[in-house]
């Protein structure tokens, strides 16, 4: 096969590559940002859902046992046949002698009563949320 076309010169190829990299640089930066945002959203949603689930489980027990007592150190509550406690970054719930771990890695769990209402504060921070200084969840009006 005979080639009568002149090949690209080095300078043409270099200019072409430079142009492609200029075009793709913002594109790659955007992709990277997108990737970060996606993972952040997924982690946030997962944490939120997990904490909500823990809160609702505690909430339902407290509602079912309105004679519950908040522990003196405010790190748990006790009712007839059950209790919930936060110790060593773990929330455990004991129901009829059986103990289950509701959540791990919990950096704050507290119960307190104010004006006839019980407030439950629950935070599970990781590096992502520490930078936001955000309390993850607050459930009130039990």
């Amino acid at each position, binding site marked *: 096969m005979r080639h009568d076309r002149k090949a690209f010169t080095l300078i043409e190829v270099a200019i072409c590559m430079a142009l492609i990299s200029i075009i793709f640089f913002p594109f790659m930066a955007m992709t990277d940002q997108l990737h970060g945002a996606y993972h952040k959203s997924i982690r946030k949603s997962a944490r939120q859902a997990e904490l909500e689930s823990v809160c609702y489980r505690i909430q339902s027990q407290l509602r079912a046992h309105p004679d519950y*007592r908040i522990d003196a150190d405010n790190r748990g509550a006790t009712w007839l046949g059950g209790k919930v406690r936060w110790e060593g970054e773990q929330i455990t719930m004991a129901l009829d002698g059986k103990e289950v771990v509701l959540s791990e890695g919990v950096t704050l769990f507290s119960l*307190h009563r104010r004006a006839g209402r019980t407030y439950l504060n629950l935070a599970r921070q990781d590096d992502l949320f520490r930078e936001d200084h955000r309390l993850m969840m607050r459930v009130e*009006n039990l």
Partner: protein
Amino acid sequence: MDMRGGKAFTLIEIMVTVAIAAIVFAIATSTYMQFGGLQRQVEYDHSLTQSSSQLDMLREADFESLPPETRRVEKDQTVKLARDTILESSIVVRDAAGGLPLTGWTFEPASSKLRFEQPPSQGTVVVEYEFFLGSQNLTQFSDSQARIKLPGGPGFRLEQVSLAEGDKLETLSEYRQQGEYLQLPTHLSNKLIVLDYYDEEGKNKVSGSFLDANFQRTTGVTATKLIEVQEPFAGGWKMSLPLLKEQKP
């Protein structure tokens, strides 16, 4: 460099290249927007959860302690407003009939008082304003040195500090704010501390207006107020939660 010998791109080649580039960018941009929306949704859900406690506070508040306030002008030509985190630029003063805005007054933020240069012709004025709503019930356990790390930045202001012990909640008066820490009396180590605070970074802004019998906004004084809580989320976005307040007979 002599390019004349080389074959140029045909129109169809250029069009195909442009079309491919456009498709790639369209996909990338649309995905980016989609995830931006997802992030906003997560932030919105979070803000909505937080706002329920803000609405509870407003539900319990007296009708007269929410804007617009109808107040009598005192003998010293001042009017004391119920809130102490008022956004000064939002204040509008009208006569009791809800007429045109009055002038000739100054606002003293330290005491939340309006001071009139001349006494208004009627002894009563209606004051519209926006204020920042505080956050309540933020809890932290004090450390072994009876200190807690405050969550806020420059706009953070403590309103009340309480000690929770079991079912009891006691307001504390002895505490000292040292930079980003709050120092409590030494015997209060490892205790649950409940904080009520204002954070201007959070900017939960509350505004209000009177509603007439048809639930339309009016400047005249009625027995119904529409209170709106504005809560920011995901950067520049804001959500607005409404609350109707009726004056008790």
